[in-house]
């Protein structure tokens, strides 16, 4: 289920603009990796390149290698649709499908590609996924109600349930708590801790305490100036990054001297 990711010499472009340059990173299975850095440093762009969501934007492309268990995601015969089925993503703002009920939202990914699923299996999967996202007890009586009627934090957990329902190898999270209140944030953080047992998780966050709380390893991205590409400045165990970083820039950022 959970897989290892090796990123080798990855450059990411938006048309002619080089947004991220030369990333080298190894992400271990069943771990939480946090990506931090100032706005515009390319951490979200890098995250989106890990499941080929980056190229959804017209003109965007990558150069380099992203190996997942020895297979290059950017290889010639790799279908981006297949990549996204294996590597799920949770976005900054909760985005359940407004026209679907809670249960339909959970099953949205499973029902793609005309896959048929038995009613009993579907019910089981809905319950399992919602339990997995710590949402079952709150919504079990209203599974046929629209997902957009839930609170922001519940909607985000619904999106996580939808993502894990397709049993991905990796779950990417792009600032999943930035639109949520502290209580909901705590619920998501607890959930990340539990999901770690089964999935490889990569999370982009602006909240450094959050990175320190949830992650095993942390990567710090930075840019040298406006219009310059973002780079991975330092990547190490979270404890090391927050207590005794090798790079001056990392220390400045962590201690709040800029960013």
């Amino acid at each position, binding site marked *: 289920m959970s897989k290892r990711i090796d990123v080798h010499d990855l450059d990411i472009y938006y048309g002619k603009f080089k947004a991220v340059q030369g990333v080298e990173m190894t992400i271990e299975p069943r771990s939480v990796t946090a990506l931090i850095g100032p706005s515009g440093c390319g951490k979200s762009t890098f995250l989106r390149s890990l499941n080929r969501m980056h190229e*959804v934007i017209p003109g965007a492309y990558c150069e380099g290698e992203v190996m997942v268990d020895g297979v290059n995601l950017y290889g010639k015969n790799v279908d981006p649709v297949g990549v*996204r089925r294996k590597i799920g993503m949770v976005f900054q703002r909760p*985005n359940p499908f*407004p026209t679907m009920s809670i249960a339909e939202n959970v099953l*949205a*990914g499973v029902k*793609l590609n005309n896959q048929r699923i038995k009613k009993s299996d579907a019910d089981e999967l809905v319950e399992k996924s919602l339990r997995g996202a710590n949402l079952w007890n709150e919504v079990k009586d209203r599974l046929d109600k629209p997902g957009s009627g839930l609170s922001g934090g519940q909607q985000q957990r619904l999106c996580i349930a939808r*993502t894990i329902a397709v049993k991905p190898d990796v779950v990417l999270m792009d600032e999943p708590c930035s639109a949520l209140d502290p209580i909901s944030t705590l619920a998501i953080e607890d959930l990340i801790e539990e999901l770690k047992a089964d999935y490889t998780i990569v999370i982009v966050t602006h909240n450094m305490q959050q990175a320190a709380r949830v992650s095993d390893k942390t990567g710090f991205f930075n840019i040298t100036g406006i219009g310059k590409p973002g780079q991975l400045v330092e990547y190490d165990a979270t404890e090391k990054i927050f207590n005794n970083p090798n790079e001056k820039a990392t220390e400045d950022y962590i201690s709040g001297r800029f960013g």
Partner: protein
Amino acid sequence: MRRPGDRIFSGLSTSAGIVILAALALVAIFLIIQAMPALLADPSEVRGGQGLFHYIGPLVFGTLLSAFIALLIATPLSIGIALFISHYAPRRLAAVLGYIIDLLAAVPSIIFGLWGAEVLAKGSVPLQEWLFENLGWIWLFSGEQATATGRSLLIVSTVLAIMILPIMTATNREVFLQTPSLHEEASLALGATRWEMIRQAVLPFGRSGIVSGMMLGLGRALGETMAVAIILSASGARYSWELLTSNSASTIAADIALNFPESSGISTNTLIASGLVLFLITLIVNMIARWIVSRRAEFSGAN
């Protein structure tokens, strides 16, 4: 204390709103007063000599039949074109295509009528005969004989479909473009292909817009006069499902246009009464549309 500018603007917009309502009411009152004599007259005096219901009924049928078939042709086409423009075509081609579709809306209906009668009808005679011979077992394509001139109700509906295509495509394109990228990305990130993404995120979001577009198109198709009158010059008032024969139904608007200049007395009142019926039909169509749009508001993208 409100500022003068505020007061003037609120007065202006309120009176504009009242003017619209007043115009609508005046039209309705005019229709009712002018139709009254035909409603009260002896059945033998009414056009056709067998009563109002007997005269207007088949025309209502023909109006609805031609408009619905036009809608049947135009809806999938307009959705397809709109999706191509919003989600498939390269940006520059999309702009050109959107512009051309909008131009289609600027063609006067009389031109569509002439083109339908002279070009489309004549040109499609072999196709219509083929339909008649091979698909004649479908009740819509059955009858005595396919018309030799090609000027059939099928051509009327086809021309109507082309005429309502621009407004429907424009509406659909607008709502498809407004699909929140949030939902499109949610779908793509689950491993949806582009078509699956469209079915999962774009079409559900655009459904109420599609229905509004259909109703706008239906409104135009119901009321279209010149194009129908030119193509179906030999009007007949009969209940007929036949689309290919000269024995087909006609529409209210075309019937009024063809017969009004030579009518007088109760005959004129009869035609106005049929106009009143058309007015009511479009009103009801619009109300149904509103109802459809609001019915699943809870699940719409608005909340």
